[in-house]
């Protein structure tokens, strides 16, 4: 089926080459980082994780959100999702690929990455995260590929793949829960040491992932003859609405606990992020942008008349995605490190090479996504006239 990615319009190839060019720039910068060390980034002794780990955290959520399609479609026989479920699974593959790359570029000694397997350490959450992430990639590759192959042949997917599909549901929850445990189990980091961390991760994941999927569906419909279906998009919109409310609610709980208890250690990271601490306030404009986007998106989403207009929905989805990207793909990680263990503030901002490497990995993700979607769409266009199979 791969050959389907090799034929395409001029627009398709332009897009591919733009991505390849950005990947090239990212790769050159990675070589520089490999040579010089991670000091090339904006990270420091005090803020020892930055952009890479926060992108990883954010994208685990995007990957996990595929279950929001798998559950209704496979468990509740919600036929409307028949056409989008493959898009969700392929989005998960692209997202996990980016996650693994972000972890890799964050390592100080990348050539030793296999030490995680050579010296397995079950008490380390990072060990489990590596296991579940690779497992999830594997499951989605098999499921996505087999169902699509079956589709092309016009037969239902083989029976043996069903258990894997069911397994993918708890597995998706596990990848994001385990990722939350990376943070939520660390003593001394008040911002992260919260029992609702995993729940909030899932809430924001089930909002940002489907929001991205809606945007992707609309693009796919524009650039191809494949239509994921108006109802499917609207159903996704409802998922985004509920999940976004859950996420904002959980964030509100964090605020309450910090500020009603008035425990300084709990308040400081929030004060730093939203108001600035000791005169340091680099992240304040971003965090407020995230807040405003969240409010705007919720106003649109909660209002059925607005949500039903596709351009309004698209706007709301972009707002949700950016809002959550700032919140989780930036603020969450930095907030845990500020102030430091000595109550001093060291600020963080990504360096140019760091930003370019990050952009390069996002482009790899989009390249994988484009190729997978191209194949899926080609198969779907071919079989568009055939009756629904599953």
């Amino acid at each position, binding site marked *: 089926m791969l050959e389907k990615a090799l034929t395409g319009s001029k627009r398709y190839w332009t897009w591919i080459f733009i991505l390849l060019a950005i990947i090239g720039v990212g790769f050159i910068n990675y070589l520089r980082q490999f040579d010089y*060390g991670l000091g090339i980034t904006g990270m420091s*002794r005090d803020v020892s994780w930055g952009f890479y780990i926060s992108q990883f955290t954010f994208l685990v959520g995007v990957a996990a959100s595929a279950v929001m399609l798998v559950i209704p479609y496979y468990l509740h026989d919600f036929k409307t999702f028949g056409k989008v479920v493959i898009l969700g699974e392929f989005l998960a593959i692209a997202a996990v690929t980016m996650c693994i790359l972000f972890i890799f570029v964050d*390592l100080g000694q990348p050539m030793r990455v*296999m*030490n995680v397997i050579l010296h397995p350490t079950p008490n*380390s959450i990072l060990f489990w995260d590596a296991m579940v992430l690779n497992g999830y990639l594997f499951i989605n590759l098999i499921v996505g590929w087999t169902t699509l192959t079956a589709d092309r042949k016009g037969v239902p997917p083989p029976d043996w793949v069903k258990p894997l599909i069911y397994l993918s549901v708890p597995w998706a929850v596990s990848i994001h829960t385990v990722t939350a445990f990376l943070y939520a189990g660390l003593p001394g980091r008040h911002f992260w040491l919260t029992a609702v961390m995993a729940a909030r991760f899932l809430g924001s994941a089930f909002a940002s992932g489907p929001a991205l999927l809606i945007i992707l569906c609309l693009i796919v419909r524009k650039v191809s003859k494949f239509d994921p279906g108006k109802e499917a998009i609207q159903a996704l919109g409802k998922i985004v609405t509920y999940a976004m409310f859950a996420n904002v609610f959980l964030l509100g709980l964090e605020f309450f606990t910090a500020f009603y208890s008035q425990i300084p250690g709990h308040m400081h990271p929030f004060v730093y992020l939203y108001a600035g601490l000791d005169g340091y306030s680099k992240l304040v404009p971003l965090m407020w942008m995230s807040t405003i986007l969240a409010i705007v998106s919720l106003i649109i989403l909660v209002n059925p008349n607005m949500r039903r207009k596709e351009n309004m929905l698209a706007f709301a989805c972009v707002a949700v995605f950016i809002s959550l990207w700032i919140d989780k793909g930036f603020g969450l990680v930095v907030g845990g490190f500020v102030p430091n263990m000595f109550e001093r503030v060291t600020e963080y901002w990504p360096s140019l090479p760091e930003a370019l490497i990050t952009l390069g990995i996002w482009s790899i993700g989009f390249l994988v996504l484009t190729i997978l979607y191209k194949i899926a769409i080609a198969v779907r266009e071919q079989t568009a006239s055939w009756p629904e199979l599953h």
Partner: protein
Amino acid sequence: MSINRRKFLKIAGASALFGLTGASAIEELLTTNAEASVSPGPEALTAKRWAMVIDVSKIKTKEDYEKIIHACHSIHNVPDIGNKKDEVKWIWEEEYENTFPGVSDEFIPESIKHKPFLALCNHCAKPPCVRVCPTKATFKRPDGIVAMDYHRCIGCRFCMAACPFGARSFNWRDPRPFIKEKEENKEFPTRMKGVVEKCTFCSERLARGLKPACVEKSNGALVFGDLEDSNSEVRKVLSANYTIRRKPEIGSGPSVYYVIGGNEHA
């Protein structure tokens, strides 16, 4: 740059040949763990749980502090990179309010509030850094010392996020150019970029029957000994003075104690 690139290509080639697993395994075979290779001789100092008591009232001048810090950093080849972002440090000065956040109060004597304290790894009884390390590159020895294997560390910095005391440093860049040549201690390994390091409680000196370097240079302000031996020097100081530890509420069980008052030791 060209050498590094050649090295990179070589490594890249080798890993393509062996697969990454093979390459890491071979690297581990070829490198010897410099600390492990110091096998304790008959004169070695041993303990069930090493601990330190720091009597800050006995460290008076700026020179006193510098002497202690320099003793550690010079024999352990700790680089002086000269900027805060890339900083590597094993033992350093912090003010009282920063060392004990949440404990300080505005009405305590000025002399204590802004008194420098010494911060270093606490060699915790239940070290969070060890708990989170995915490769066992940081591990707890039977004598309570939390040690590092620089050849196994993948540089994920999970341990830095986990340490509640900010005791760990990462080599953001190659530290070797920042070690003053005439000061380099050839008997102690230098580190490479991309690994984490911290105070080792001078395990390499204990193996040769020597007390830690900082203790030796402290004129009695730093006391070192076995916490589980009721006759040890640390236990004597602990039973005669009111001591505090950093963030005991976290439950990691720091093995570094501080005396603030300045009674004569028993």
